[in-house]
């Protein structure tokens, strides 16, 4: 009898695993996501994971997410770019809680692929208008006074495909070029105590050692205010795809400036006008002129659930959840509308709310099968209010690509599925 029971459970485990595989596919289609349950594991039965020993320590020397979370991954949009080495993928923010982005889920944006650098061969050169042109090893950097800070990093093109209309049906694809981690590193204001600074130094060229030689010009005021060189994120060394062994951190400013695989800082008396700040990352207006050096990421928010990937599965109470951030400081308030912006209620902001970091908000709501038009609206400590797409279009047209921080609308259909829609 005991034996039979165990055999039956084992069989069911295989069935369960098979079931999980197809469930994965199902969940990814943004429908349902309800696990097929195995009644043998439910009360009053003894579940198989209780009847058997589990894996021992060191089964995974570096722990990985549960096998049932395989759909929580970065995703890209293949047709956007010519090659994966010069491309982007997106953080699955619809599947994350709190404000910390796990290192393996931080979106990637590369211009010449991921450089693999032996930390022993890492060098940071500082040259130009400094008293002493110098070279630092990674060990040198780690001996400077240390700073630990949470910051969001958002690509200036996050939401760039949505200027003309709702194009991608996913929270991940429309808002996922953002992540939020705790950085450990050295402030540049400490580093330059070693090199000195000539009075004429007004700009810094930050240069990566990747195959694109990524370069951006940054004004000296920002460099001395809060920029840092980070070698760790969320308590461990940077991931290679995030610039291992060291990257620049430019809090609140567009992600392109956070040069990864940082190899050089050159101090000069004028901007360098690199490809990334002329041909790219300039914002074209309807009259054919383009805004240049638009660095700050304005306040923004998004409802991560419900969202196109997160259908509503049950009638009754739900916890709406979302993320808000501002490159100008702290988030002060987030409002949520369920009727397309006609009426708003203020959501709960969860501690900690930090400057230039993601903030988490939630709001309970009842769903009884009715259609909803879900929106969120962030207000930051400068009293800046997240705009509608129409407000932005009026000023900037539809060909800016960058800096679309407008309010998105998720339409909850009667069957609980959710669509990215444009109101007008």
């Amino acid at each position: 009898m005991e034996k039979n029971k165990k055999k039956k459970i084992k069989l069911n485990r295989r069935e369960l695993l098979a079931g999980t595989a197809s469930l994965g596919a199902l969940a990814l289609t943004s429908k349902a996501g309800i696990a097929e349950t195995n009644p043998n594991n439910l009360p009053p039965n003894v579940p198989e994971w209780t009847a058997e020993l589990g894996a021992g320590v060191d089964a995974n020397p570096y722990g990985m997410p549960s096998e049932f979370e395989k759909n929580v991954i970065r995703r890209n949009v293949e047709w956007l770019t010519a090659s994966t080495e010069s491309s982007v993928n997106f953080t699955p923010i619809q599947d994350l809680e709190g404000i910390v982005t796990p290192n393996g889920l931080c979106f990637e944006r590369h211009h010449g692929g991921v450089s693999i650098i032996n930390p022993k061969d890492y060098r940071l050169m500082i040259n130009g208008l400094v008293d002493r042109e110098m070279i630092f090893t990674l060990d040198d950097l780690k001996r400077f006074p240390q700073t630990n800070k949470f910051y969001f990093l958002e690509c200036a093109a996050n939401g760039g495909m949505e200027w003309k209309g709702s194009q991608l049906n996913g929270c991940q694809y429309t808002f996922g070029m953002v992540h939020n981690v705790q950085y450990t590193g050295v402030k540049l204001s400490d580093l330059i105590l070693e090199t000195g600074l000539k009075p004429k130094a007004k700009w810094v060229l930050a240069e990566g050692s990747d195959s694109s030689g990524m370069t951006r010009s940054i004004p000296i005021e920002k460099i001395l205010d809060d920029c840092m060189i980070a070698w760790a994120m969320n308590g461990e060394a940077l991931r290679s795809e995030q610039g291992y062994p060291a990257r620049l951190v430019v809090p609140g400013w567009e992600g392109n400036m956070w040069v990864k695989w940082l190899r050089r800082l050159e101090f000069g008396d004028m901007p360098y006008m690199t490809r990334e700040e002329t041909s790219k990352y300039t914002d074209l207006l309807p009259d054919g002129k383009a805004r240049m050096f638009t660095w700050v990421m304005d306040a923004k928010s998004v409802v991560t659930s419900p969202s196109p990937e997160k259908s509503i599965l049950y009638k009754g109470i739900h916890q709406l959840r979302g993320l808000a951030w501002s490159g100008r400081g702290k988030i002060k308030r987030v409002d949520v509308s369920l009727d397309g912006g006609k009426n708003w209620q203020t959501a709960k902001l969860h501690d900690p709310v930090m400057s230039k970091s993601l903030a988490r908000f939630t709001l309970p709501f009842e769903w009884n099968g009715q259609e909803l038009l879900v929106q969120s609206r962030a207000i930051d400590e400068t009293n800046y209010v997240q705009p509608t797409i129409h407000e932005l279009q009026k000023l900037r047209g539809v060909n800016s690509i960058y800096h679309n921080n407008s309010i998105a609308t998720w339409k909850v259909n009667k069957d609980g599925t959710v669509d990215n829609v444009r109101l007008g």
Partner: protein
Amino acid sequence: MFALVKKTLIFLVLLAIPNFIIAEERKFNLGKIATKTEIAGWDIDVRPDGLGAPLGSGSAIKGEEVYAEQCASCHGDFGEGLDRWPELVGGEDSLDTHDPVKTTGSYWPYASTMYDYIYRAMPFGVAQSLTHDETYQVVAYLLYMNEIIDEDFVLNDKNIGKIKMPNVEGFLMPDPRPDIANVNGNPCMQNCDTPTKIIGKARDIDVTPEEEKS
């Protein structure tokens, strides 16, 4: 005699000032002084005024060969861009239209940026493999294709900072944001006047990647 002592003292004091600052400044005694050779190898950027442009020269006539060999497989024989690789030529008078075409000719404000970027990042996957002369040649070829210079114009480190690009006046600074109407942190909360008609749906556009079914 006293005058001499006084002068000497002043001289010594003047000498001492910079030493004093240097001693103060190097606070942690970390890192090492970079040599000129080390800096020369890594300091490859070229500024709009031509600062940093390495010795070298090239014309469009020579550049055509280099371009055909090193660039055309992605950017097309005429800079038209194959697949999703960038267009490099044309697009004039398109920036204020519905479909702007941003090329080196129509959009890029400085020829220095072309040199800087091509040398540091191109050909894609073989970065920093062109010689300085080859880089000047390719830049000259692109400038010629965009009708900015003649085919026999010899581009070099002395004149690259003087090339006038058509769109050099096309950029606005400083950043005017926040540019939306300031409602002072108090937006409308009830019965707000806002359109709620659905005018577009991402699902209908149908370009969202679909997961592979296992």
